[in-house]
């Protein structure tokens, strides 16, 4: 292997770029010899001090090593890259280009060998192992150092069975100031046929030529004619060649260019999917249905990772339809079940949710909703957790309706999740259960309401509000005495939402009682408004007394009067309005404001 230096590799294969010499004028030597197969032996003396060359190679190695160790924005890496650029820039003061032969562990030029300190981890070996034997650096290489290092980096990471090597990677990069020549090790031993010295054909004879022109030859019928097409004219007439028939008009060229542009924005994934679905519908390839489903199963996570929900949901819809086929075999059915199960795997879903959260993917609401609605119950904990933890209000807003739908489909699982040990999951499940009024979750919500965690009790109180269930009402009444103010407020609001007589009775007693007078204004308002929501016309008197009545020690406080006004605003009765109008000139501005709001509300309701 090490004997394959440029000197003993065969002559360079012409690639059509070799220039013929100019006929008269001497053309300056190109910066890179046309055959590029110069060797270090070709030079008598180096026009550059050895130290400068050694510095260039060493700086290149250092930059390559730094690239392995540091992130792109790391100042250490940037320092080494700058060093390499400077070393090469300096070379161009003395050299038009630098052509280097590559040996197993060294670079060679100008009769000198520059051995890599990194041995088999060094750059020479990296090039050598893939057959690269000559490198040519041109002025401007320093500008291409980044993509060059990118190739080096990728090449290092590739194992022996990888589908690329340094040659294929360099080719893709299209450097303009870096050239290379390589020995195609794969091609060694392939044979290439060559023409014989003399043509093998025998004389044809004038007679046969004339016969052929006249069409008297016993000529075979072309397949098209056999297929019923009219025969083509046999004798070529110059008149047939109207150039426009063959010439691409400018508008046709434009059309082709438009097609090329369109090609790069078309949804090739979608087109592949359509093909796979068409084959799923095709009974003549029934023996491939299982394979198609396996492919779809592999495409799903790939699409998810890209945030391509359009195609993801398309797969889910199509597979769901296919799964309804009564003639479906056990194998296909098993494949489909596996596919859906794998979709909800945490490692698959978490990637998608992560990209959704950081905005890397941005599906439409409909796509997101459709996708989430196809997920099975196994996915619910992770989805709920994500929704609870995200700081994006927009994401929460988008996920909520979809998760509500999932919750409706899998109510029993959702109810169980309210009791999950993971707080995020439990609270999120409680919120969903509340929104969708999942009665099956009532007991778990009550359990949550009695737990020590304040946040859990608050969520439970809010969620229970939607349950028209006696046990929910009991629990909420109980929560009105909770140690936490927020829980009490939530319970009051929750109770009002139940619209039950028990709620009216309980809230009425609170309005009458002393305890509420010691609460802060927010809690007072919550309790009075809750009472107003469930109160009837006969309760107006109580509230009127609090708003307008004189008491032994004077009027009620301004806060209580304001709260009573707000409660009255929620009662759709003329007496309530009368009471509010009577208080319209209350001396206290806070009360007057509350009365005005209450009247406005009464008017609209």
């Amino acid at each position: 292997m090490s004997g394959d230096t440029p000197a003993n590799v065969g002559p360079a294969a012409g690639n059509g770029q070799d220039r013929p010499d100019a006929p008269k004028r001497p053309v300056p030597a190109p910066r890179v010899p046309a055959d590029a197969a110069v060797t270090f032996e070709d030079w008598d003396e180096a026009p550059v001090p050895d130290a400068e060359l050694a510095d260039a190679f060493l700086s290149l190695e250092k930059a390559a090593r730094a690239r392995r160790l540091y992130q792109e924005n790391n100042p250490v890496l940037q320092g080494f890259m700058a060093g390499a650029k400077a070393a090469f820039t300096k070379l161009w003061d003395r050299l038009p280009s630098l052509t280097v032969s590559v040996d197993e562990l060294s670079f060679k030029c100008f009769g000198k060998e520059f051995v890599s300190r990194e041995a088999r981890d060094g750059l020479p070996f990296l090039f050598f192992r893939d057959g690269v034997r000559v490198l040519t650096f041109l002025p401007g290489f320093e500008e291409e150092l980044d993509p060059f290092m990118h190739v080096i980096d990728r090449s290092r990471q590739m194992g022996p069975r990888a589908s690329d090597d340094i040659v294929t990677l360099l080719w893709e990069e299209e450097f303009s100031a870096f050239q290379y020549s390589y020995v195609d090790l794969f091609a060694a031993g392939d044979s290439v046929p060559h023409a014989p010295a003399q043509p093998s054909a025998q004389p044809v004879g004038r007679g046969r030529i004339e016969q052929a022109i006249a069409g008297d030859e016993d000529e075979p019928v072309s397949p098209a004619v056999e297929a019923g097409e009219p025969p083509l004219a046999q004798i070529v007439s110059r008149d047939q060649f109207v150039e426009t028939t063959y010439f691409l008009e400018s508008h046709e060229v434009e059309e082709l260019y438009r097609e090329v542009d369109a090609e790069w924005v078309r949804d090739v994934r979608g087109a592949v999917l359509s093909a796979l679905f068409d084959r799923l519908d095709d009974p003549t390839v029934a023996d491939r249905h299982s394979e198609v489903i396996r492919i779809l199963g592999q495409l799903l996570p790939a699409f998810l990772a890209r945030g391509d929900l359009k195609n993801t949901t398309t797969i889910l819809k199509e597979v769901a339809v296919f799964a309804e086929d009564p003639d479906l075999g056990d194998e296909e059915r098993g494949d489909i079940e596996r596919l859906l199960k794998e979709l909800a795997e945490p490692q698959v879903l978490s990637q998608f949710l992560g990209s959704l959260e950081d905005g890397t993917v941005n599906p439409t609401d409909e796509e997101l909703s459709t996708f989430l609605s196809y997920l099975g119950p196994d996915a619910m904990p992770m989805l709920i957790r994500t929704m609870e933890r995200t700081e994006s209000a927009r994401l929460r807003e988008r996920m909520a309706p979809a998760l509500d739908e999932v919750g409706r489909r899998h109510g029993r699982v959702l109810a169980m999740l309210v009791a999950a040990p993971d707080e995020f999951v439990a609270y999120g499940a409680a919120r969903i259960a509340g929104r969708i009024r999942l009665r099956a979750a009532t007991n778990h919500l009550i359990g949550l309401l009695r737990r020590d965690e304040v946040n859990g009790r608050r969520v439970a109180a809010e969620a229970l509000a939607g349950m028209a269930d006696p046990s929910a009402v009991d629990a909420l009444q109980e929560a009105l005495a909770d140690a936490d103010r927020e829980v009490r407020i939530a319970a009051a609001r929750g109770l009002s939402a139940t619209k039950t007589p028990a709620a009216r009775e309980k809230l009425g007693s609170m309005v009458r009682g002393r305890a509420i007078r010691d609460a802060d204004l927010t809690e007072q308002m919550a309790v009075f408004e809750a009472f107003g929501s469930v109160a009837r016309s006969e309760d107006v008197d109580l509230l009127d007394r609090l708003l307008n009545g004189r008491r032994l020690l004077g009027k009620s406080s301004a806060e209580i009067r304001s709260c009573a006004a707000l409660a009255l605003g929620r009662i759709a009765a003329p007496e309530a309005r009368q009471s509010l109008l009577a208080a319209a000139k209350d001396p206290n501005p806070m009360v007057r404001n509350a009365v005005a709001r209450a009247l406005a509300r009464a008017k609209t309701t």
Partner: protein
Amino acid sequence: MNRPAAAPLVHSETVLQPLGRSLVTAVYAAAKAFKFYPLENATVQNALDQLFRIVRRILDREDTIHVRLVGDFMFLNEARLRLDLSDYVSFSYVASLLRRHGIGQINIDKDIERQQLVPFLSFLIEEASGGVGSFEAFLARLESSRTKNIDVDPATEISDELITEDDERAKEAAKVTYFQSVHVAREVLTDARLGRAVNLRRVKRAVQSIVDQVLNNETSILGMTSLRDYDEYTFTHSVNVCIISLVIGQRLGLTKLQLYELGLGALFHDIGKQRIDAAIVNKAGQLTNEEWGWIRRHPTEGLLALFWMRGLAEVPYRAMLMAYEHHMKIDLTGYPKNKRPRLPTLFSRIVQTADGFDAATSKRSYQHQPWTADEVLREMRENPKRGFDPLLVKALINATGVFPVGIAAILDTFEMAVVVARNPDPKKLHQPIVRIISDPMGIILADPLNADLSEIDPATGKPRRSIIKTVDADRFGINVAEYFL
């Protein structure tokens, strides 16, 4: 006839291509502007600015500029410029201006100034006799204008010899690429049939090499596709479809990396056949309906097979579609049948065109009598039932000429000839370059000679030679391959 190839030293691409193409386009634009507008017109001034910018950019890299017209090719210093649909009109125009004045080379040195381009361009667009003395007249005018830093050399006969040498080298390179690619195709398709892992690295190198050849050496590599080998049909067909697809793709202005993707897919377009019983695929006789049913499955099999081909950076969707859609006609008849809406991709239609052309011109298991290539092209272009994209067929004809390379033909001189290159002038697609292989009496020439069928006989004002009939070379005992290898 076969000899083992030494592992050749392969070179990366030269760097002057884009600059050279821009230069020719800028000369074209400036010459056109000069022709239609006065010097002070903004169009002329803008064109001059653009031309001077490009000249300076090249001079920043190279010490001097030498633009040479050698035969039908144009060189910028050491780089032979390749052309595509977007610039071949400019190339043709600039080449015609140079020929008109007998100019073989333009030389510009690094001290060139913008205003020095003005007299040069003015003289260039002027009419000239095109005959003897044209160059001298041009040179005299240029010298009398005292234009410095830009001069010209005459076209010479030596150029033709050189281009022949150049063509020989190019042909050899194309041959090595072609046969290595066939080896690769054989290896990977056999591996696929046996369920073994495919050596994608080798495939990629092969396709990269074909892309390089198509970009730099199109005539030679396209000529290789006319070497039909019945025994190797499966493998040569894959490589041929790859080459022909790339040739079409180049005319559509695809970038090198886009061509690479097209080439990879095209090479694998028939991989589905490797999942079908070889006895059916290679059956010599008529296929039964059931067997045809299996053959019709190969696009589906290709779609599935390519998905499992691991080692590619990502799922090769476009290649999967090329395999799946290459038998769909433009009206979506053909096979497989679609239920859902489908518009075959441009790449699939390119592969369909290339596949249709190569398959119809090849002898293969279930087609003993191929059509001649010109028949096939006419059929593809004129018969809508064949279901080819008419613009892509035109692009193909643009690349191959009306008489593609490898066609055997009888000339109006009663000589027999083999087409070896299309005419580089896009207006003379029906007048290819041929190799005359027999004299008018039908005696095979030991030393065949090349002829340009667009060459005019000054005595008659008509072409010296024209094709009057294309023939099946096999029936005349002519081995076309001998004229390419």
